């Protein structure tokens, strides 16, 4: 049985559906990558799992984590899960830490809440967590404020907060996008090492296909609020089946750069209000036929073993 199982997840703001038909699984200890251009619904997927959608957002469908149905869980019980078995780190390490509390206080708070530790042992544990995320001079840093740390160190501190209770699932929403290239590599190495050490599952959201091919076992490629293609990372990189996945891979010369514009196809992701009736990729797809505009294509299994939402997947793959 998988650790997390998402079925037909949809997220709406008022009458606007920004995400729909989202289904995927994560097994214990597995790393799942979620990729897609800006606005494709990656963060909304993550926040829906955490139960932290922005004001006005609502989720429908089913999210099963361990043996709980998260969307049906009362807020009080979600609070017991968050930070304890289910943790998340965000894109902006600058803004994600509270400026008026020390790093140590912010780590200790989780331990005091979920582990019932007293002030002193939580402080001591905070120091060892800072060492775990490889922050030098942890004994000194623990009593410093976020503004005294570099961007990379802040993201490490965020990771320390997230890992404080050894969660079963860590959701990382573009954890390195806001950082310098050299710092990025360090954070990714850290994440890779930690997940092996702690055996936790990771949902890694990224723009960076290089990162995905590097550390993810399976991938979900999203486009305009729907799954375009999903499957084993090796299969998707070796033989992308969905025209959008193909375009994504063609857009980068090597597998170590971020997704830029898609020169092969041009155009941008439509806003949720302008989603096309049929296949949402149709306006940009070089293989589009009139039949593509009838309705959203269902996922079908491809020759490489992935699942792709494209009616012409047999021909174009």
């Amino acid at each position: 049985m998988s650790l997390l199982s998402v079925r037909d997840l949809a997220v709406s703001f008022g009458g606007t559906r920004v995400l729909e038909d989202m289904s995927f699984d994560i097994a214990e200890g597995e790393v799942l990558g979620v990729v897609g251009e800006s606005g494709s619904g990656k963060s909304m997927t993550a926040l829906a799992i955490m139960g932290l959608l922005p004001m006005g957002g609502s989720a429908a469908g089913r999210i099963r984590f361990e043996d709980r149905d998260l969307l049906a869980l009362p807020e009080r019980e979600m609070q017991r899960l968050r930070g304890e078995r289910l943790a998340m780190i965000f894109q902006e390490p600058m803004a994600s830490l509270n400026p008026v509390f020390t790093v140590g206080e912010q780590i200790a708070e989780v331990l005091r809440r979920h582990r019932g530790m007293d002030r002193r042992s939580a402080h001591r544990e905070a120091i060892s967590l800072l060492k775990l995320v490889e922050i030098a001079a942890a004994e000194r840093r623990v009593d410093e404020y976020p503004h005294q740390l570099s961007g990379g160190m802040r993201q490490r501190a965020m990771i320390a907060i997230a890992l404080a209770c050894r969660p079963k699932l860590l959701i990382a929403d573009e954890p390195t996008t806001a950082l310098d290239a050299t710092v990025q590599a360090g954070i990714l190495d850290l994440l890779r090492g930690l997940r092996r050490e702690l055996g936790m599952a990771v949902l890694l959201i990224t723009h960076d296909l290089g990162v995905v091919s590097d550390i993810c076992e399976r991938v979900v490629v999203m486009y305009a609020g729907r799954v375009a293609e999903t499957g084993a990372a090796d299969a998707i990189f070796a033989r992308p089946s969905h025209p959008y996945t193909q375009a994504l891979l063609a857009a980068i010369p090597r597998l170590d750069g971020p997704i830029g514009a898609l020169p092969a196809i041009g155009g941008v992701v439509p806003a949720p209000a302008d989603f096309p009736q049929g296949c949402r990729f149709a306006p940009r797809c070089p293989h589009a036929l009139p039949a593509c505009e009838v309705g959203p294509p269902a996922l079908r299994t491809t020759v490489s073993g992935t699942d792709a939402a494209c009616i012409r997947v047999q021909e174009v793959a």
Partner: protein
Amino acid sequence: MLRYAAGRLLAALPVLAIVSLLSFGIVWIVPGDVAVEMAGPTATAEELARLRERLGLTRPWYEQLAGWYGALLRGDLGESILLRQGVAQAIVERLPVTLSLTFTALAIAFVCGTALGVLAAVRAGQAADRVAMGTALVGFSLPDFWLGLVFVYVFAVLLGWLPTGGYVPFSQDPAGWARSMLLPAAALALSQMGLFARMTRAAMLEVLRQDYVRTARAKGMPGWIVIGKHALRNALIPVVTVAGIAAGVLLGGAVVIESVFSLPGVGRLIVGAIQRRDYPVIQGGLLLTATIFVLVNLIVDLLYAALDPRIRHGRR
């Protein structure tokens, strides 16, 4: 932190120097002859001469200035002509009344105002928000002396719960002191409470959108800790600025409220002195008011630093 505090203290010194110079200068700035103003139109030339002598106006200005500062450093603010009492003593006698009133009002305004503001922000757009902001607006619009009169009528005259006025020193009877302060402080506080409520609501709405609030929730913290600790600590930083201004406004409002509740405070002393052209008292009052302002701002600066580590570390 110590260096920061020392710096703020040093920065306050020039302000005090300028204010003391202005207080000295009042006698020179007012149009006409101070002695004539004080003694009134019926005074004889002889009386005027004697008054000028007592005020030291016959000496050259630099001697007067030196004398003023010399006395000031000794804590001597001169003699009130009309009260036949030292100005410093007259002020010290009445200061506890005014400070009690102002700071009780500030405490009421701050506590109730921030509470209303937080409630309104958390329930933004809902009924509770409209009720809280409506209350704030009403408080903001009603003049304090009018509220004072209504409070006296309702709570003292009709219901008889609290005294109509008068002051009981805290050292004599703390409970009596609280009873004597409640109505005047509440009347004074209401307008500033509205101000605090609006400021807090705006600051909270801004803070609640920040990523670190989401982080606190992602850590599994219960709602009241997310709001009351993570958000409020940040939202209070701009609200504290308002506290400095509010303290000044309340000090000004205390003058009227002291009259409504017959409280023997500095406000009434100064008003009386202005009516009767008692210049030494006016000078002392000016100096006192300015000193309180400077002190309040100093406290605000220190609170700022206590709330925001970025200021303690000289950033921002």
